[in-house]
């Protein structure tokens, strides 16, 4: 805030005695509290937009699985969000944002507490935002990470082992690795840059999904006698809706990550981020549109949807610095990556039902590298260091957890149960009971 300005008034005040400026403390002017209010608002609006992404993941995944596994996919999505919300409060938030702490081990597992009701300006950090809004905003990010995993492992993993993995991922793994950078840990000190989380959120989700997909194996019949047997999604309208929801939520995801909105510079930067985010999504979609037409002589809607999302993931590591043209080509490459890596994974017999690994992991890596093109303060070396650090920690960590879960309780339903679909076999409830499936 504008100190000199305050002085003016105080000085002026001095002229007229008995005006006791001190008493004013309880009600400081907007120059002092404006930025706090605006940034808190940014977190609240950004936060509910990112919350909305949970619905986006749910619809995208429900649309891309077969009708016999839709109820299960919906159950996983709403449950994982709810569990993430609780775990992040219970230990995650304070594990991730200790400020000082570098995240290698958790000194104190303490649940999150917010500022008191009706807190006064004197008792908050007027340079930032309310703890409540910050917690609300950050919480949505960890949920996104977990959603990424559910999509990749769809149609073949039992409910409970998956949810237990979510507990570990959202309560411990994500917060620890997140603290390296956003908690002010060693990577941030090393100069790593990941504005809104191409690596910290998306690649981490992708790594956990990759580990799971490997341990779990493909859906029955997906790869038979050396051939890929596609299992088309049951509802592309839902899948498209989900993509639009994610696109919308991403404005909050990237825009809110400016972490400030109370100055001309900050709010203008948020605008820049909105514009760039939109451009990257659009170019990712168009890239996939054109590329699938060229490669397959037919446009593949599911690839266009993945392309838009890949564009979004690609720009997430640096949505501020690039020009609109920069956002365009960075996003477009994200879309291209998806079109080529989706079939590649199939060749490797890694079964990723919704394309989560190409979209979030591969495009996430690309986006993290692309930072160096527009952000002069970054170096390819530190970027790659970060990518590797998150990859090794999350992939290995996830592998271990998946193996333990497999040993202890098993990950997959019986063959017949999987064939009949998890909805009837595990939940005894169809998503579309009135409709004749064929």
């Amino acid at each position, binding site marked *: 805030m504008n100190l000199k300005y305050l002085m003016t008034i105080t000085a002026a005040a001095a002229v007229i005695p008995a005006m006791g400026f001190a008493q004013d403390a309880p009600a400081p002017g907007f120059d002092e509290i404006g930025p706090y209010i605006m940034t808190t608002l940014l977190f609240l609006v950004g936060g509910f937009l990112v919350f909305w992404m949970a619905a986006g993941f749910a619809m995208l995944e429900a649309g891309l699985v077969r009708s016999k596994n839709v109820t299960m996919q919906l159950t996983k999505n709403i449950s994982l969000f709810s569990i993430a919300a609780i775990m992040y409060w219970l230990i995650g938030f304070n594990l991730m944002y200790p400020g000082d702490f570098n995240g290698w081990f958790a000194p104190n597992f303490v649940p999150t507490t917010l500022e008191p009701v009706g807190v006064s300006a004197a008792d908050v950090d007027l340079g930032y935002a309310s703890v409540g809004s910050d917690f609300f905003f950050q919480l949505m990010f960890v949920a996104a990470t977990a959603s990424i995993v559910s999509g990749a492992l769809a149609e073949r993993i039992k409910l409970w082992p998956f949810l237990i993995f979510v507990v570990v991922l959202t309560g411990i793994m994500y917060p620890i690795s997140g603290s390296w950078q956003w908690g002010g840990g060693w990577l941030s000190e090393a100069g790593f840059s990941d504005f809104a989380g191409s690596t910290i959120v998306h690649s981490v989700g992708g790594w956990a999904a990759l580990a799971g997909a490997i341990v779990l194996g493909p859906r029955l019949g997906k790869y038979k006698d050396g*051939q*890929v*047997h*596609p299992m*088309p999604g049951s509802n592309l309208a839902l899948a498209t809706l989900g993509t639009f929801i994610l696109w919308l939520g991403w404005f909050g995801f990237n825009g809110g990550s400016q972490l400030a909105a109370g100055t001309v510079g900050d709010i203008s930067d948020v605008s820049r981020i909105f514009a760039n985010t939109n451009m990257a999504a659009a170019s990712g979609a168009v890239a996939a549109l054109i590329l699938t037409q060229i*490669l*397959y002589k*037919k446009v*593949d809607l*599911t*690839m266009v949807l993945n392309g838009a999302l890949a564009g979004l993931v690609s720009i997430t590591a640096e949505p501020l610095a690039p020009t609109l043209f920069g956002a365009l080509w960075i996003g477009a490459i994200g879309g291209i990556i998806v*079109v080529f890596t*989706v*079939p590649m994974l*199939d060749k490797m017999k890694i079964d990723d039902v919704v*394309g989560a690994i190409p979209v979030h992991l591969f495009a996430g890596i690309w986006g993290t590298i692309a930072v160096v093109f527009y952000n002069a303060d970054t170096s390819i070396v530190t970027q790659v260091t970060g990518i590797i650090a998150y990859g090794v920690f999350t992939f290995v960590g996830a592998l271990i957890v998946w193996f333990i879960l497999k040993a202890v309780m098993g990950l997959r339903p019986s063959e017949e149960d999987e064939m009949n679909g998890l909805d009837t076999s595990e939940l005894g409830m169809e998503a579309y009971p009135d409709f004749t499936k*064929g």
Partner: protein
Amino acid sequence: MKLIIAAIKPFKLEEVREALTAIGVRGMMVTEIKGFGSQSGHTEIYRGAEYAVNFVPKVKLEIVVSAAMADQVVSTIQTTAKTDKIGDGKIFVLDVESAVRVRTGETNDDAL
């Protein structure tokens, strides 16, 4: 009476129904089916993976008519459903022993 079962291309349904009504067919049962036959087996691409489509959507007609009418119904379906392209479909004729109209209890030809 005869039961005539025909598998035809879905977009021909309306035309066939009209042609049959024209020759006096007063009822039928229509079912969406997946057809397998010589037409099957063309390939599609989904997310970069080629796959063979073994079943093609068809419409199945089941029509019970008096023995006398059977041949006419068969030929009407055959000529109307024809597009000269593979996958036009098949027509089968089976013998029906008896028929009843639920509403009235009328039997056999009167039931149709």
